[in-house]
């Protein structure tokens, strides 16, 4: 994610929300993506957290505005506030915990019912390091959590088929080893249609005339610089 320092590319903001059952690793995925770090005993998120991270694509820079929500049931009322107007959603489950996939499916259904039409949804099965497939991928951490075996309870096949049926992106990740984490965000960045970055989202977004930053008013703009004078009579 390091900035390349080349000539400035067009840059756009993408609002992304993370949803999923408690303790599946949402905050850990964000921590990995934003700080390339992992905490063995990360405390549950209270309410929500907001972070940003840039993602450099060959032709443009995407600035992710990431809303990491709390998975605990008592915070369920919060979600609509975050997925409203979101361009992307990461729905996370723990692939060692089948109930978390059921919860993920509920979130996907709610997003499809309530979120912006055209939201890009990615289904993410996390904690791959706890399975046999996780071995060898993240370099050096294999088998760290489970001595012998495979803690996997959700097959790749099952989740993948579901994701394909619903038109979702799909990844298996490990926030712990970092495996596939950046890939999830890059894939999302690439899936957001160019038009929806510059235009109002909506069914006809593709017919949009090019709309650039010229429209957004920057509150850090020419504040106070001759404000009064320009209307002096």
């Amino acid at each position, binding site marked *: 994610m390091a900035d390349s320092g080349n000539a400035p590319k067009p*840059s756009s903001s993408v609002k992304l929300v993370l949803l999923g059952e408690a303790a599946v690793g949402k905050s850990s995925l964000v921590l990995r993506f*934003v*700080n390339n770090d992992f905490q063995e005993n990360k405390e549950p998120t*209270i*309410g*929500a*957290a*907001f*972070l*940003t*991270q*840039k993602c450099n694509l060959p032709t443009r820079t995407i*600035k992710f*505005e990431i*809303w990491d929500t709390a998975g*605990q049931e*008592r*915070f369920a*009322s*919060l979600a*609509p*506030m*975050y997925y*409203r*107007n979101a361009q992307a959603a990461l729905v996370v489950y723990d692939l060692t915990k089948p109930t978390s996939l059921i919860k993920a499916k509920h979130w996907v259904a709610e997003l499809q019912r*309530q*979120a*912006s*039409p055209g939201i890009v949804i990615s289904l993410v099965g996390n904690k791959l390091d706890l399975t046999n497939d996780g071995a060898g991928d993240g370099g050096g951490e294999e088998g760290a959590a489970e001595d012998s075996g495979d803690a996997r309870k959700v097959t790749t096949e099952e989740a993948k088929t579901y994701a394909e049926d619903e038109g979702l992106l799909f990844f298996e990740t490990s926030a712990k080893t970092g495996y596939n984490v950046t890939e999830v965000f890059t894939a999302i960045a690439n899936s957001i249609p160019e038009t929806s970055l510059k*235009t*109002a*989202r*909506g*069914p*006809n*977004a593709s*017919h*949009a005339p090019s*709309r650039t930053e*010229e*429209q*957004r*008013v*920057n*509150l*850090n*703009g*020419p*504040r*106070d610089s*001759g*404000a*009064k*004078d*320009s*209307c*002096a*009579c």
Partner: protein
Amino acid sequence: MESLGDTLWDVVICGTGLQQSLLALALSRSDKKILHLDPNDFYGGAEAAFSLQDAESWAARVATGTGGLFRSASIVRPEDATGSTSRAYSLALAPKLIHARSALLSQLVSSRAYRQVEFLAVGSFHIFKPSQDPVQPSSLARIPSTREEVFSTSAVSTKAKRLLMKFLKFVLNYESSPQLDLWQQHADAPLTQLLQQEFKVDSELQAYIVTLTLSLDGKITTRDGLAVIRRHLSSMGVYGPGFAALYPKWGGLSEIAQVSCRAGAVGGAVYMLGTGIKAMEKVGEETELQLTSGDKVKTRLLVQADDNPSGQTETGISRLVAVIASPLTSQFEASVEGAPRPAVTITAFPAGSLSTTSGKASEYPVYLSAHSSDTGECPLGQSVLYLTTLSIPDAKDILQQALNAFRGVSGDDQALQVLYQLQYEQLSGSKTIQTDGSTITLPTPSLSLSLEDSILGPVHEAWEKVMGDAAVEAEYMAFSDREGVMDDDDVYDE
């Protein structure tokens, strides 16, 4: 995990309208234990924004008489618009504009909440000129509100230009001595009296000036009128050339309320939608609340909003929200070089410029706020029109007449097709904050068409009550960015 009932909350905030939400933002770094409820199953209260489906269920609820400040909601929808189409709309219950010099904007900046809001420019104010005779059709005239505009306008006579210039110059310094003497004797009389007697302004030009105040009855007092016009003039150019006011994308104040609640949640507040207060009981220093969810909670303080109408019908508004099948391209052009393309424009229909179906002249002004699809409130190729007038028996009829008149003059043939209409009335109520022991009741949401700084005082007062001895004035709404939030291209230097 502690359950709701085991916690002694410092404050329970009921309702997620603008004021309650701003309070949540103000308290978001306080470490206070906050439970934020809303009896509605949506955020924003009287400042919410709705998809078409949301609007439908809301209107149905208002029709059952449980809509609080809202009544007589009805929807006309010739076309079926459900599912994903419904969600391409975000119709605002409070499509207010925010002047650049508004204290709210400063608070959004200092609290860092502005980073999550996308602000758009509000363009010109127009006035509707009805046809005087068959050869001269009705038209829209742009109201000049800067020196340049006064010079270049062809809408008013040379004499009127001179008077207007003189008046605008006066307003900029109206609070200092020579000016003060001129207007103080008229302070509580309508602004039009001052314009007529001291500036010899004719009734046409008076209408131009009063329009700048967005006064609902057209009878704003001199004192209030001068303050509003001054705010308008001094807001011009603050955030870029050619515009004085801003509008938050995705449904106006609804967006500010939600961004504030999000900040509250990040600060650890617990949110419950669809949950109100059924009963309350004082137990020693604490208040015990019985929630509609069945939970019982204990709190030191309760903050709620007054959503009981005061019963004075003349202070209510009648609103028509119409979606039209036209981008109204000519309405949304930048007025000066280098200005951002406006997403909102205002058109006023002065009292008397419209007539009811039975031929009665309109008694009060009608204000029409046109929103382009850039506001995110409708799909591309369409626009949303918000029409407002004082709620009198003829109001519904007059709003329809205004809509028709606008379609006639807006310079776009397709504007004739109306896809969707939502109509309702909103009542006003208490204007002051009330404290009764440990219950704080914020004022009823105001009906004004531009955001008034006066809504911020009660929020501040409630914050002081919640903070008690820990209240540090300099820390009110002054926060730094949270960790992990990048300070990139838009560094704000204080």
